[in-house]
């Protein structure tokens, strides 16, 4: 690796990052405006959320007054500008469905979602590297056929079905793991409790993300086997283990990294379903509540977070590709 090559890659990466960030700003703006417009067009009236069952006793005059107090009588574009101004000055606004500041809701819930999604993704990556390599190595054998078949089948099963099956077998059937929640019903919040309750949702999230990754690892390994440097290594009489792990796998890893970045949207939707089923108190399950309540501030922030996660995922994947791809460095 020559110094010019390295600096060339750095420039390329910096340019990539700058272009993406420049693009991200209008995308995020557009997405948040769209959230406000869609929520305004939805049949839910936020005043009903604020009142709850008290609406049954409320006089029309009082409801109108409260609507005015809360600023809900202002036109949607104005409310969007209010919100945007607040966000730019660091005030994320108030979540009506959670009845507390949005920042507080995020502080409380985001860590749980990051924990779940991070563990799920890590599990998926490790699991698919292992299983995918195994399948490619034994290409055409019974193990390969089994892995491929199960992988294709899993692709078609939504995460919440996987979750229900997992609960039915591991919690209710075998009694190994708790059904749902962050801790046992009567227990205090502690690492051991959370770890125990994290196993099933993280495994389900990881498993539901893995089929594409497994099949992809297998496919790109098979492609790598036909490349010159691999066939050359084999010809030199190196042991099969060394050929697969040292020569073929690194070549196959590059597109794999890109794929992980591209799978962030599925990870986000997967997290929503998994959090719902397992009563996991993360931000993803709050999306649903916020949408039903036409809770613009919370909904907009959560949508922005999801969008940002997707943009960041694809950016990181592309950066990794530029940094890892030996051909880029050769050209640079």
């Amino acid at each position: 690796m020559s110094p010019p090559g390295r600096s060339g890659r750095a420039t390329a990466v910096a340019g990539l990052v700058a272009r993406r960030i420049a693009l991200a700003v209008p995308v995020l703006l557009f997405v948040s405006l769209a959230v406000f417009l869609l929520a305004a067009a939805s049949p839910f009236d936020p005043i009903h959320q604020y009142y709850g069952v008290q609406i049954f006793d409320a006089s029309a005059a009082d409801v109108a007054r409260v609507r005015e107090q809360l600023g809900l009588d202002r036109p949607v574009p104005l409310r969007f500008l209010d919100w945007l101004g607040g966000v730019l000055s660091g005030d994320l606004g108030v979540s009506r469905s959670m009845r507390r500041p949005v920042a507080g809701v995020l502080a409380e819930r985001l860590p749980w979602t990051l924990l779940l999604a991070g563990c799920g993704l890590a599990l998926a990556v490790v699991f698919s590297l292992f299983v995918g390599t195994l399948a490619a190595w034994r290409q055409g054998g019974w193990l390969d056929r089994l892995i491929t078949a199960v992988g294709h089948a899993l692709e078609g099963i939504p995460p919440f079905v996987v979750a229900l099956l997992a609960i039915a077998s591991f919690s209710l059937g075998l009694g190994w793991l708790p059904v749902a929640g962050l801790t046992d019903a009567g227990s205090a919040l502690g690492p051991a409790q959370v770890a125990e309750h994290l196993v099933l949702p993280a495994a389900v999230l990881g498993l539901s993300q893995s089929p594409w990754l497994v099949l992809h690892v297998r496919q790109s390994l098979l492609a790598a086997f036909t490349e010159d440097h691999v066939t050359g290594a084999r010809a030199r009489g190196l042991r099969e283990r060394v050929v697969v792990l040292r020569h073929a796998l690194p070549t196959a890893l590059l597109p794999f990294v890109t794929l992980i970045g591209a799978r962030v949207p599925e990870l986000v939707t997967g997290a929503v379903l998994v959090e719902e089923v397992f009563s996991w108190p993360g931000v993803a399950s709050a999306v649903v509540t916020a949408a039903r309540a036409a809770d613009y501030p919370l909904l907009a922030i959560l949508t922005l977070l999801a969008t940002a996660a997707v943009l960041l995922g694809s950016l990181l994947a592309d950066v990794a590709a530029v940094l890892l791809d030996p051909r880029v460095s050769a050209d640079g």
Partner: protein
Amino acid sequence: MLNRRTLITSSMAALAVAGTSCAAPSGAGGGDPASMLLADGYEPSSLNPLLGYARWGAAKFYDGLLAFDGNGRLRPALAAEQPRPSDDARTWTVRLRRGVKFHNGEPFGARDVVATYRAAVDPAYAATISSGLSMLDEVEAVDEHTVRFRLNIPYAAWPARMVMGILPESALAEAAPQENSPLNTQPVGTGPYRLAEWRRGERMVWRANRDYWGGAPRIAEITVVFATDDNTRAQRVQAGEFDGTVLPPLLAERVGGDAYRTVHHDTADYRAITLPADHPVTGDPAVRMALNLAANRSEMVDSLLGGHGEPAYTPIPPSMERFHEPEARLEFDQRRARELLEEGGWRSGSDGVRTRNGTRASFTVMYFADDTLRKKFAQAFASDAGKVGVRVELAGVDRTEAAERIGTDAIVLGGGTPLDPDPQTYPGLHSSMIGTGTYRNPAKYRNSRVDAALDAGRSTVDPAERARHYKEAQRAYVEDPGLVYLAFIQHSYVVRTGVWNGYQSVVEPHTHGTTWGPWWNVEDWTPKE
């Protein structure tokens, strides 16, 4: 989404039943009588009394000036004695209990009561309970331990507005809408329990207030787990995980076993069908009476509630004994209903639906789509109406849509409080309420005899005389019904037996769950020896 969640969790329960013999997790509850583990189907969105938390009392974190005794009467709580009304019921003077402290250590006094009631009616706080206090003109501290309420009308039911939780003046210093008030998640009251922890969407822990003026509760810690799906909750109770929960009556009967008992509480919680007065079909007195006679209420109570309820003819249930008029009934008689329709000029058409002067005897009944019980009442009512030749279309709607259509279409109404007959009848039936709010007399019912009786009932403080007026209102109403009251539903619970003493039945408002139910007086429970 509620529906999807229900679907998911129900199928989960089904999978569990079908696939496996359910391995019971070791019960976390049941061991230590000083702690209790309950499951609730609903999670409150706020614990702020100004946003309606526990407005009919039984607030674990708060005390009102008065508290419900479980059976029709209000007893002093933060008040030192019964409030003293003036002869015209326009001025109420309340002496306050001394030596009471809020959870934050501040002493309780007249200024806190004044601040709470002022905030409740001051538009700046955007309190959702303000409409129920519209008769309040002014509240003032007479001295440190006495408050006086001045009302703009004679209002004998004012004590029912005194069960609302009292907040410390210091927490209400800022006159701002309550939507992001810290009180929503961190209640500061004088109540028997303080909130120790609330993990949203998951659970809440109440810890006994050692300094409680009524004596520290013997059950030191209560954990309430939120589990929305009825079947999941039933399963987890069956597995021994909880010390009690709220369930639909039929499910409550099925779970339990030796360690649990199922209890059904009488309520003032009614279900009724409104009949819009200016609709060409439902506005006709003959149709209104015929539908009331055609509804087979006993059958609905049996089949929809498993017998755990009572037929309703007026808004005042038999459980509000002093005010209930047993003579005010509308007996099931479909033959008479058909005769009435014939006499009213409604002739049977070829499709079985009656018509009069080209108008088909047909109207729409709305119900909240996420409420299965209301849907079942709507269906049963539609079926009974069809038997006498009136066609009822059903429409599952959300609350926003219901509010838009309520003046023209019928709807399944539900609600009620046993604390006083005035809030139970006045907003629903008095003609002065027409047009003042979405759910205030939504069917635009007008009856001068009913109006006069309800006015008389709220303007005299003598209990016997009040009872006479409310009985008269019920008799006048059944002669000219404007809704079809169908049933008062019982609320059902399972509760662990053999661990505690202190269970006492209670007549409940519309609200139910772990704040009411068997645990409405949990602060008085004691471990069994």
